[in-house]
């Protein structure tokens, strides 16, 4: 769909106008703090057994593996599956102690967060602040990937990640086995092949 619409052309401009009209509609029904032009990118799900989860969300539910790898900062190994509608799930398995590991131990896994992409993080944060929502962990350190979180206290229990950045395109050559074997890691918000001494 994104390939069809692109950033320009008749379809792209039509999409821009539709999004703008939807923004006006939302305002006229009293939604003054929406994230305009935002879209739900994926649902993050914490799992204990990543391979078993990959079988469920990939083979049985028809998802296509598009990205994944170890995220050292978060202490997780992840797999992203995409579906025909454009929706995605992010499977998160803890690899060392940290918030995800604690979530798994305390709740036994399950839905952990929603990730929305926004075209304008500043405007979105303004809207949240205007709506009385508590924004935490704003990270603007990387120009190509800026993010913030809405605390579950203000969202009726749901952790929401807001991201301003480009889509993560499907990664050629990435497989469930290669991720589980530790061949991929997240660097600069992209899956990269691990350049170990053995592989060199």
């Amino acid at each position, binding site marked *: 769909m994104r390939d069809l619409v692109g950033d320009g052309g008749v379809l792209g401009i039509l999409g*821009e*106008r539709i*999004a*703008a*009209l939807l*923004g*006006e509609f939302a*305002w*006229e*029904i*009293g939604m*003054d*703090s929406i994230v*305009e032009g935002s879209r739900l990118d994926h649902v993050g799900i914490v799992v204990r057994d990543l391979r078993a989860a990959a079988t469920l969300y990939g083979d049985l539910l028809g998802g296509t593996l598009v990205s994944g790898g170890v995220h050292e900062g978060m202490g997780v190994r992840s797999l992203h599956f995409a579906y025909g509608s454009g929706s995605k799930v992010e499977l998160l398995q803890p690899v060392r102690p940290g918030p995800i590991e604690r979530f798994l131990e305390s709740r036994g896994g399950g839905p952990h967060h929603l990730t929305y992409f926004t075209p*304008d993080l*500043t*405007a979105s944060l*303004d*809207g949240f*602040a*205007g*709506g*009385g929502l508590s924004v935490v962990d704003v990270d603007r350190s990387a120009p190509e990937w800026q993010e913030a979180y809405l605390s579950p206290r203000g969202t009726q229990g749901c952790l929401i990640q807001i991201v301003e950045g480009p889509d993560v395109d499907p990664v050629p050559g990435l497989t469930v086995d290669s991720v589980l074997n530790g061949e991929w890691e997240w660097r600069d918000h992209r899956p990269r092949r691990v350049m170990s001494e053995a592989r060199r």
Partner: protein
Amino acid sequence: MAVANPVVEGMDEAELLGFVSRAAVAAVRRAAATSPLYRWFYARSDLRPERLSTLDDVRRHVPMVTKRDLLDYQETLPGGGATPADSYVRQLHLTSGTSGAGREIYPRDARDLAGLGIPGAYEYLWAGLVPGDRLMLTIPYSQTMAGPYFQETCAAAGLVPINGFSGSTAERLHDLERFACAGISATPSYVHRLTLEAREAGLRLPELKAIFLSGEPYGAAWAHETAAFWGATVCEGWGATQTLGVAMCTCERGAVTVDGDGGPRHGVLHGLDHRCWIEVLHPDGSPVAPGEAGEIVVTGLRPSAQPVIRFRMADRVRLLEPGSCDCGRRTSCYAAGTIGRVDDMLKIRGMNVWPDAMDAVLLRSPVVDYRGRVHTDERGREAVDVTIAFEPGTPPESVAGLPARLAADVRRAVGVSVDITVVEPERMPVEQFKSRRWTDERAVRDD
């Protein structure tokens, strides 16, 4: 009661105020973070947008912006609040420039254009027009903003625009009848002319529901007589390029009501508060009390390619108590029919005309002084007479063609046609203030 939007009109006063407060704070923060104009402007102050949380905070801490500030900014960074070449800009709206100070540039993005017609749709729907009705537009599309604005407003209300800005008054009357128009949008002066010509022709338009006035003040008695003649509600809207359409308008009660003693009085303008926060302020910046008049200062609440934050409009209005219209809507309220200027600008045939700009054209040697008069001629047309005097001793043959050349210069620089008459200097009335060079004797000003 006509309902244009049950959600907004269903808000009570506290809900609406909360909505406006959140939106105004967010608008300031957004502008401070993303607008080149406001980043430049606020860099000269100690504003801390993150510390704002209420309307009162905004009122106390956010500096007001003037036309001069915007023009200064555009001189610093040509292109306006956004660079016109930016890929997200879809239209550029310019003000008329008839002040002589310069033309403000308003870049518009897709969001601006999506919202452009919505406020005006309230005006038309509240007046009782319904989707499918035809609305004649007589205000010329000579400036960038007007055309898109009127077309989009009709689209937002589901109305069919009948473009009547070319052709004669007789042709417009014919089209009003032929297309069974339910509404007409015009300046008061032009409505007066239409009325005279229709009366002379014995024309009645039974389909006409409402007459939408804008652009200049008018008297309550005149509006009452006009409504009676046409059998239609006289309505009014106020807005500007800066507000991206109307920011206040009348409802089905119209712009003129009748007192218990039968005397006409001005009706009520409702603020479209959920889209534009309107302040009415004394010259020192303090808010006026209900019943008092002051300068209109606006803050656009929707995201925009060119945000407008606490912009001083130099228009003057009388503030009323919220909810003071009999219709029961809990909006901010203002006196209809009375919006004028805090400066000496005149609105002539829809053009903003500043005496300073006239002075610049007319007060050149050998002209020593002049007087201007705006009036309504016997055909109901707005006319401008200018009387000039030459320096004593000026040889007549040296200025033979000067009045015609000056009239052409006025037309070119200010945009209005004038008739110029030469008198002896001693016949020119002595006035101390330059604004007294002009008198306004138009028929629609009856009070």
